[in-house]
């Protein structure tokens, strides 16, 4: 779908632009990631409001996580999360084996160190969505082999 291309391009441009600005002057890398994450946060809050307007109340945390993995992820990335694991004590691991924002980069070790930049926005997205559903959370991401990520 054409919309996806627009978003992918905008996102990669955002990442590139922010880092370019940081290199030229003030700010270290850490701040760029924070900016991307906070942008994702705002977008996540807005998106989750629109998606859950008509859905029923969620029974519990696990229900919310399942919603995020299935409906939310499908609307944003056109696919579902491949794997969800939990320790039933508040920690959830979502695994996506073909993360949309990373598929454009070559699968290999070369760009592994740059991958986290592309995940910051999505982490914010999840955190924003959860916060508007009433859950305070910390979201981190890790990439061990492209284009899969957790």
């Amino acid at each position, binding site marked *: 779908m*054409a919309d996806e291309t627009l978003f992918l391009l905008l996102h990669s441009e*955002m990442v590139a632009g922010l880092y370019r600005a940081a290199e030229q002057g003030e700010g270290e890398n850490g701040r760029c990631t924070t900016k991307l994450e906070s942008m994702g946060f705002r977008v996540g809050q807005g998106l989750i409001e629109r998606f859950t307007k008509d859905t029923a109340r969620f029974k519990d945390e696990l229900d919310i996580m399942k919603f995020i993995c299935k409906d939310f992820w499908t609307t944003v990335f056109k696919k579902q999360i491949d794997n969800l694991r939990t320790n039933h004590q508040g920690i959830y691991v979502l695994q996506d084996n073909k993360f949309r924002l990373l598929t454009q980069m070559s699968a290999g070790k070369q760009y592994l160190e740059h991958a986290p930049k592309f995940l910051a926005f999505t982490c914010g997205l999840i955190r924003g969505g959860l916060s508007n559903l009433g859950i305070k959370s910390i979201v981190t991401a890790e990439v061990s082999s492209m284009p899969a990520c957790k």
Partner: protein
Amino acid sequence: SRELFVLTYGALVAQLCKDYEKDEDVNTCLDRMGYAIGIRLIDDFLARSSVKRCRSYSETADMIAQVAFKMYLGVTPSVSCSSAAGNEFSLILDKNPLVDFVEELPAERASLCYCNLLCGVIRGALEMVHLAAEVTFLQDRLKGDAVTEIGITFLRKAEDRKHRRN
């Protein structure tokens, strides 16, 4: 979905406003980002639409309005030619999806061109098909005008060369 794009764009503009104090800086930044997106978007556009080469400026302007805008933003602006020489066009948008969630510009940002990204995108895309152009906003609904109008001025004659994509 388009909402994701619109919301992300809004967050981006908000972040840029925080980073830069002057409106012109934000406008320039948006334009530059739009340019970088445009030079890649044109590939995607040509691949999806497989249109033939445009033979005149007015055909190009029509193509942008009727095919490209429709494909990516879901709206079709109307095109009008605003110069006798045939190289200035304006696209008039009654509905601009990028501002769906924006009510009004904050008071201290009166000269912010919220959709300046669009200008950069058009400029970048045209440049990749060897058409130099200047693209600016002539009217902006967010600033109180009746419609949103984008002006495209083609600067050089289109070069005569085959630019077919299969």
